């Protein structure tokens, strides 16, 4: 022990600031959150003590008889059986939302990266123009798309009207509403995938393509047998990260669909947020959502890693 300290003290000293910050700012609240999910904490019972001023300005405090208390797994049971909130509706929305967004991010990003990887005039112009959406803060993008899809003054319905199609009330139906959010998020997320995959493409050895061409491989065969396997390290990382980020993407749903119609397009993260900060604030319900979301993601990430490891891929 002594020896180990002598050898490593400076490394430990160097990581100390980060460890302290993480401990105080991340792990303490995290434990607090897990604890809150086992209580019935809400806006009205959050005080541990009730203090009253008595004559002369002194303050007396006594324990709050209605203070939040431990309720065991009640929150989890209530949420998973649908007695509180709309977990399964939000869960299915989250699945559709995440699958659609990640698939489109990856597909479009890959297509654009393959095109940009060639040499042609105007290439750098296209590259700059195509990464521009990445520079827009996500809540600004959300408002921009809400404006574009606006039922009365939006440009999309304007175009529909101009070509003689009935305008669509985007936010009055679950799937069209979710569609608008997916469009906005795809617009926002494709540039990152494109840049990451472009980097992956450029690390593939060009000789492989030359050899394949000599052997008479068609462009499609070269794509499937060289490009895709060559991209695997990058792909596996960005798909994992992309899934986690999309799963937790708060501002797009919150500002584009606002859960319309009537909360039917809420995803888990926005559902938790609304439970905590809208109406009667139910902190314990939101904390339970948080624990469930984190558990889902941890399970997903470990299954994902295991599947990749099985195929001989380690990252």
């Amino acid at each position, binding site marked *: 022990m002594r020896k180990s300290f002598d050898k490593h003290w400076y490394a430990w000293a160097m990581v100390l600031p980060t460890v302290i910050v*993480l401990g105080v700012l991340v792990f303490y*609240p995290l434990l607090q959150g897990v604890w809150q999910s086992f209580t019935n904490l809400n806006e009205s019972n959050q005080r541990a003590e009730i203090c009253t001023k008595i004559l002369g300005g002194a303050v007396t405090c006594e324990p709050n008889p209605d203070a939040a208390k431990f309720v065991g797994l009640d929150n989890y049971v209530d949420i998973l059986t649908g007695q509180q909130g709309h977990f399964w509706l939000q869960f299915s929305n989250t699945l559709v939302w995440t699958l659609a967004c990640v698939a489109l991010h990856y597909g479009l990003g890959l297509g654009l990266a393959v095109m940009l990887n060639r040499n042609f005039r105007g290439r750098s112009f296209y590259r700059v123009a*195509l990464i*521009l959406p990445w520079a827009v803060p996500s809540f600004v993008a959300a408002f*921009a798309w809400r404006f574009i899809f606006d039922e009365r003054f939006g440009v999309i319905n304007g*175009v529909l009207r*101009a070509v003689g199609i009935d305008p669509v009330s985007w936010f009055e139906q679950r799937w069209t509403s979710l569609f608008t959010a997916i469009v906005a998020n795809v617009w926002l997320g494709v540039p990152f995938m494109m840049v990451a995959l472009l980097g992956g493409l450029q690390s593939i050895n060009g000789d492989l393509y030359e050899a394949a061409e000599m052997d008479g491989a068609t462009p499609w065969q070269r794509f499937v047998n060289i490009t895709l396997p060559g991209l695997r390290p990058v792909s596996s990382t960005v798909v994992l990260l992309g899934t986690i980020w999309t799963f937790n*993407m708060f501002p797009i749903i919150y500002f584009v669909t606002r859960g319309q119609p009537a909360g039917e397009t809420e995803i888990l993260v926005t559902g*938790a947020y609304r439970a905590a900060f809208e109406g009667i604030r139910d902190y314990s319900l939101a904390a339970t959502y948080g*624990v469930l979301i984190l558990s889902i993601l941890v399970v997903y990430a470990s299954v994902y890693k295991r599947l990749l490891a099985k195929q001989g891929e380690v990252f």
Partner: protein
Amino acid sequence: MSTMPPAAVAADPLESVADTRPVRNRRRRERSVGASIALHATLIVATFSALFPILWVVLSSIKPASEIRRTEIQVFASPTLDNYRRLLTETDFPTWFVNSVVVAAFTMVIGIAMSATAGYALSRFNFPGKRGLMWVFLLTQMFPVAILIVPIYTIMANLGLIDTKPSLVIAYCTVAVPFCAWMLRGYFDTIPRELDEAAALDGLGPFGTFWRVILPLARPGLAVTAFYTFLTAWGEVAYAIAFMQGSNHYTLGAGLQTFVPQFSPRWELLTSGAVLITLPAAIVFFFAQRHLVAGLTAGGTKG
């Protein structure tokens, strides 16, 4: 705060753009006219989709309010800067802007200061607990806003910090510190270890090496990390809306939404506000991009 890429993914592509391009492209000259047209047509459609929302918001921001509220489409309609004038003089927008700058700047400075040495230690030393720490950094990427926001809110409420800037800075640091450590570790990895060894031979201890040799060399990496951290704080809304209550305490994320309530939204203020928020973010973003390329390709061994 979760849309930012870790260093490894974001950095590599731009680096390799510069150095591998000429090699392969030489042998891809023979492309038929048809393929060329198809390529450009696809890219033009893609570029149009990427730029259209931005252009539309900019164009709308210079229309008078009455012209925005029209059902037929007009590209141009009596352009005016009136919306901007009103935004800057009749709303709290300038205050929100300053609040956002302060919060983002503090987050950035604290994020870098708290994580730089850790990034270095993780890049250079093998020590017990290293793997665990790396794993923790990855795990924090997975944290949904939902799991931390409630406990942090209740803690801040107990400390009486709700509706103050420190509460936001603290909340943003939960993401910024691990992110910066992760990103800086990646950057320190690109600086050759020989420099550390040379410094050690010259009699510098680990802290001296870090402070006098590595930190000056890592300036581009620090800058890029700082910019990204600034941008994530600039674009954050969930904490901002939950924590800030008075209109003059709002940051941009919390303030902008007050322009578009469910009924009678004021799109003219929203669009002009959106332009003014995006402009600095985009400038910082492109500066960081360029810096990233320069820093990574020129970096390390020169010093």
